[in-house]
């Protein structure tokens, strides 16, 4: 497993990561493993600020030269911010999936949902098993 899986984040089986701050805002992106599977990203379709997302809702699309994939919201809540930088520089996700390459932020409506997500070790194991 060569991909970076930071310890402090939570993960989903559909390859999103979640970082929650002390104000209950979750920042969401796709994992380093996901960006590598997709290849060079050419377009990111962002959700609209103000949209109410349910858990598992399709809310963004990441498009590479070979595939276009949906991004599912790992948690429920209202979209409060989107990463406008990605409109002009979708490759940011390839370069820095966990920091500059975040996709959107959600105000958690059910904070406990985060506890249901995978931790770094489980995700690393899951991603590796999927490769084989």
């Amino acid at each position, binding site marked *: 497993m060569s991909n970076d899986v930071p310890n402090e984040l939570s993960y989903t089986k559909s390859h999103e990561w979640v970082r929650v701050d002390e104000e209950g805002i979750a920042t969401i992106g796709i994992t380093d493993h996901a960006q590598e599977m997709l290849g060079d990203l*050419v*377009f990111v*379709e962002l959700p*609209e600020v103000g949209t109410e997302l349910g858990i598992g809702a399709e809310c963004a699309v990441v*498009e*590479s*030269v*070979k*595939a*276009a994939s*949906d991004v599912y919201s790992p948690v429920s809540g209202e979209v409060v911010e989107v990463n406008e930088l990605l409109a002009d520089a979708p490759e940011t996700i390839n370069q820095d999936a966990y920091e500059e390459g975040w996709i959107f932020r959600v105000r958690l409506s059910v904070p406990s949902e985060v506890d249901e997500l995978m931790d770094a070790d489980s995700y690393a194991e899951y991603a590796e098993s999927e490769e084989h």
Partner: protein
Amino acid sequence: MPFIPHTEEDVRRMLDVIGVEQIDDLFDEIPADLRAKTLEHVPEGMSEMEVTALMHARAREDGQPLCFIGAGAYDHHIPAAVWQITTRGEFYSAYTPYQAEASQGTLQLLYEYQSMMTALMAMDVSNASLYDGASGLAEAVLMAVRANRKSKSRRILVPRALHPAYRKTVRAIVGNQKIELVELPFDPATGKTDMAALTGYAGEDFAALVIPQPNFFGVLEDVDAMTDFAHANGILAIAVVNPLAMAVLRPPGEWGETGADIACGEGQPLGAPLSSGGPYFGFMCTKQAFVRQMPGRIIGKTVDLEGKVGFTLTLQAREQHIRRSKATSNICTNQGLLVTAATIHMALLGGEGLSRVAASCHANTAGLMEKLCAIDGIERAFSGPVFHEGVLRLTAPAGDILRSLAAHNVLGGYDLAEDYPELGEAVLVCATELRTEAEMEEYATKLARIMATRTQAKCPVEPKFN
């Protein structure tokens, strides 16, 4: 690439490998009552000689009438070179080539087509074409619903003055996708879409407004006001235009303050002959911002590893062979052959040639309308300016008059009774650049005679001697 079907032997060997008795067994899981029965109405095959004789007989039945019908498909001159070149072996395929390495010529031609269409429409991007104008508009409506993220509704404003077949097609395609079509009336005096009715919807949530130019009556719409109204209300503007008209009128990309968002329409006037309704082709252009929502094929220009120019299919990741049910559209092909003809047609005529054809159509129709309206019992139905079609109102039954004209070898126009009963006895007429002064005179003379027998008071029959 040879395209050879499997021999019986190939099929047998494949079935043996997978352990299946016969091909029908592959469809076992489909319930018997859902399977198509044998086709009962397909006749036995015919020899080439018999087919030739049959087609000649059919062609004789059609005769060679003078055509004054437009109504969405138009009788234009097509230079002989167009189909001579189009049907060369190198071009003669209806398919969009998937293998860029084996199809550079076709891909370059499609790229040139896209460049010509963006120039004609003054839009940023064009796709490689769609099936026809009506289904192209349905795709534009679906695209607008996806692209308009400000709108939460799936409502579309559609003028009643839009081609009736387009309205039916759009309803058939989007009707079951929870998209609501709201009809805009036309002004009975001018024939234009009623601006007061449109502005009455200010502040309401719509995904798109359809703007025909010209509309089905041939009348020119207030496209600037309509486009600006749409944008002021968060509505996307979909232009449905006759591509030939765009050679002389302001194109969709220049409508109003910021231009229409999507332009689509029927490509038939660009090199496709009238042929029992087709095949024709649809075109679609849009602004750069919406390119990822546009359905269909797009050819891109790029450079290879050695820096040489090459052409390729682009933006495929959103198509159904990759995105499956989440694809932008189920359209994954284009009308390659018709587009080849259109590209050659436009290249041969050039921008100036197209403008001259358009201007000539406009002048002929204006002249024809004047001649016909000089006949007793015939008048212009609308006061709005027209491109190359106009509506006549008659004091006699339009259907009967048109039948009489047809018996005299003149296709006098399109009877509007079925689609627009509110217009009374009304006929849509068109004179393209092909119609000569003498032919228009012939039409007017025959029509005057037929109208006279219909409308003049019968001669009183009195006994001569009492």
